């Protein structure tokens, strides 16, 4: 049986793993390679490395750490941030990443998803979506350039429409980051994830809000997502991965041994 995936996300800035609350006040957590190795050993099913400054800073980011990770890690990993062209993606994949994730550049140029699909195949094209619930309008809206608060902007896309669009263009997986929940550890946005799930025929990964073990049970059982991504609860040791996986197995959720 296909297992639900537990995915630690490591936000990377200048070669270090960092974490901010609601995308702000980034603090350094540690070095990338030992942290990645530690998570793999603890039973993480996959890792996401998100270069949070890349898309916003408009600079060439040193990605040599991708090779160093590929050399030591024996679980799949995805690299996000700053991938604007097919050539950018190719370099990351050649360095040994299994998947690349695009977010802001795909919003700027949706055709990028199509080109990535046609060049490298659907299996390695992940689209990250930062979705914000606007209480005034009652709508979920896609935000762009969320790595830099001064550049963050609301796009014209409603989340559900963008989810449909990226699938049509060849996305192999969608990571939905629910911004209102991010970093506050009050649980995943079940209502939104459930609504998106109904319109998503590719794997869907929940992101934003994990704070307790039961939040993972809820998101798998109620929103039927394929994977749950989290950062601070793992980095700060609030939820040890082996303990989480044992707990989820007790709830009859398919989890890898």
């Amino acid at each position, binding site marked *: 049986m296909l*297992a639900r995936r537990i995915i630690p996300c490591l936000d990377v800035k200048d070669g270090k793993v960092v974490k901010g609350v609601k995308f702000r006040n980034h603090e350094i957590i540690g070095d990338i390679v030992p942290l990645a190795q530690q998570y793999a050993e603890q039973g993480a099913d996959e890792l996401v490395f998100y270069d949070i400054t890349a898309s916003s800073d408009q600079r060439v980011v040193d990605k040599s750490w991708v090779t160093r990770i590929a050399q030591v890690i*024996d679980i799949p990993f995805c690299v996000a941030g700053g991938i604007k062209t097919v050539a950018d993606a190719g370099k990351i994949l050649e360095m040994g990443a299994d998947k690349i994730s695009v977010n802001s550049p795909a919003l700027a140029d949706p055709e990028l998803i199509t080109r990535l699909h046609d060049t490298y195949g659907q299996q390695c094209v992940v689209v990250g979506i930062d979705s914000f619930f606007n209480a005034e309008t009652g709508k979920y809206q896609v935000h762009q350039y969320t790595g830099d608060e001064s550049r963050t902007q609301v796009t014209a896309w409603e989340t559900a429409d963008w989810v449909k669009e990226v699938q049509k263009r060849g996305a192999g997986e969608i990571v939905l980051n629910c911004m209102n929940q991010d970093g506050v550890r009050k649980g995943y946005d079940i209502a939104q994830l459930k609504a998106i799930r109904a319109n998503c025929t590719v794997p*869907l990964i929940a992101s934003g809000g994990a704070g307790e073990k039961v939040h993972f049970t809820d998101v798998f059982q109620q929103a039927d997502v394929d994977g749950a991504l989290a950062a601070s609860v793992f980095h700060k040791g609030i939820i040890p991965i082996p303990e989480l996986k044992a707990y989820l197995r007790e709830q009859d959720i398919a989890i890898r041994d």
Partner: protein
Amino acid sequence: MTKAQQIVIVNTGCANISSVKFAVERLGVNVTVSDDTQVIQTADKVFLPGVGSANAAMASIKQKQLVSCVQKLTQPVLGICLGMQLMVEASEESLTESTECLGLIPGQVKRMQVGDLRLPHMGWNTVTPVADAPLFKGIDANSYFYFVHSFAVGISDFTMASCQYGMDFSAALHKDNFFGVQFHPERSSDVGSQLLKNFIEL
């Protein structure tokens, strides 16, 4: 003992070559990536990796004039993911009617029919090997391996291990010196390393 072997990864021009190379190197074994027919022919063990689409990969192999080289190999060959799919006769993954593959193992690659389930089949799934499958020595039945694919080869006499995702399909194939795995052993943690070790020690 194994260090003296010549292990070669066929440079199919696909993107996951370095991850396969690193995985073999983690076993303490030297490995060469090559598209030189001489180097491939004289290897003790050959890996045929692949990700992407069957038509693009076959076009790359043809362009590098490696088709007959791979077909004539008599040493153990392990196809990984798309590399396994290239070992059968034909693939439905094509810009035309069908893509002609290497024809090393009887079988057809077809798009998976999984009902309401999601495609690609992405993530860790349990694999059931047949009795005494050499590549699965020391690996518990129902161990989890990492898969990413939307096309698959059905169950046949050449199925060495099976997997289920909306349908039963071949997780591994074997005929004579040709072995193939649909999953990614290079990304399947300890059991994946064990499988690669088993292949190298054949």
